[in-house]
């Protein structure tokens, strides 16, 4: 009896801990309002296809892409401690939030990793994490449904063909400008 109780308690604990586990999505929401952070949401409409006639393949590829969220942390010379802290948080989130790491590289001052979530080749989420010792770090979350490698390739080629709706990128651009000033 005692054992079953303890086992039950452990199971209950495990379940609740699963639910309250921090996710990258929650992190995005939490930090979007915080100082030093900046969040930009990009809709797939950034790929301006009005002038193009799309093939069926290109259409499915575009449909697999839902939205893109960018969260950036800007270094300003005073927030080094926060930078290190938040960087570690993102790194652990990528591990605990069940992402598969595809590639990672780092050359001392700059590092980047590409992570995915999804079954087999049907990827529901891409996360690109870039950090640079002088500028800060950025997390790009590409959310969609069944983004296969081929769909991704098609989208990349579409990006080259189409004109981008730069409007949506304005906040990011402004941030870059600020950092130069």
């Amino acid at each position: 009896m005692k054992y079953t109780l303890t086992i039950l308690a452990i199971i209950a604990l495990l379940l609740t801990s699963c639910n309250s586990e921090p996710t990258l999505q929650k992190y995005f929401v939490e930090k979007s309002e915080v100082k030093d952070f900046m969040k930009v949401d990009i809709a797939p409409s950034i790929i301006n296809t009005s002038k193009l006639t799309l093939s069926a393949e290109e259409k499915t590829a575009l449909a697999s892409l839902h939205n893109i969220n960018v969260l950036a942390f800007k270094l300003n010379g005073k927030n080094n401690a926060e930078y290190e802290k938040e960087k570690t948080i993102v790194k652990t989130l990528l591990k605990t939030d069940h992402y598969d790491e595809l590639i990672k590289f780092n050359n001392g001052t700059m590092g980047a990793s590409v992570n995915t979530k999804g079954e087999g080749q049907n990827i529901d989420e891409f996360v690109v994490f870039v950090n640079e010792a002088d500028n800060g770090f950025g997390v790009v979350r590409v959310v969609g449904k069944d983004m296969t490698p081929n769909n991704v390739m098609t989208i990349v080629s579409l990006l080259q063909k189409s004109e981008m709706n730069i409007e949506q990128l304005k906040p990011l651009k402004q941030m870059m400008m600020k950092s130069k000033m």
Partner: protein
Amino acid sequence: MKKITITKNKKFKLCTMKNLFIAFLFTLLPSVFFAQTTAFDKYEDNPAINTVIVNKKMFQLMGEMKMDPKDKNAQQYINLVKKLESLKVFTTESGKISKDMKSTVDNYLKSHPLDELMRVTEDGKAIKIFVKSGATTSSIKEMLMFIEGGGPKDSTVVMSLTGNFDLSELSVLTDKMSLPGGNAIKKASKK
């Protein structure tokens, strides 16, 4: 009555102990699998070391990409990529870390005996390649390359490649990716 409950309790205890033990083993199991690769993981987040890590999932995804069926090189490449599991390259120019890498490689070779495939000296650098053979002699499960650099401009490289591939296929990889010590691997794969 009392006696019965005691024996029951004992049985119950034994049973749960056994279960616990099995559960414990299962929780440990993954860490045992991961332990194989952790020898070099400590180098991943060091600013003095350049790292490139490509994981199995990436190779799987790359293998799914459509390539021109007429392009023989690309097809060979895809075929090889599907058989790979992980690629790790660590490069450093720091003398201190070079020494540490050397001892880590030595230790790794002690705990995971690999066959020395070849040893060359190229431009004053000693290149050593070790392999673990699979079912046949030419099939390889793991390859470890160590290039010991001497000075500050000569970087030390540790490269680990795992999967289940053929030695002769490797030249395709060195052609496509600019891997360090590509020449040495090419020579090795022609043997």
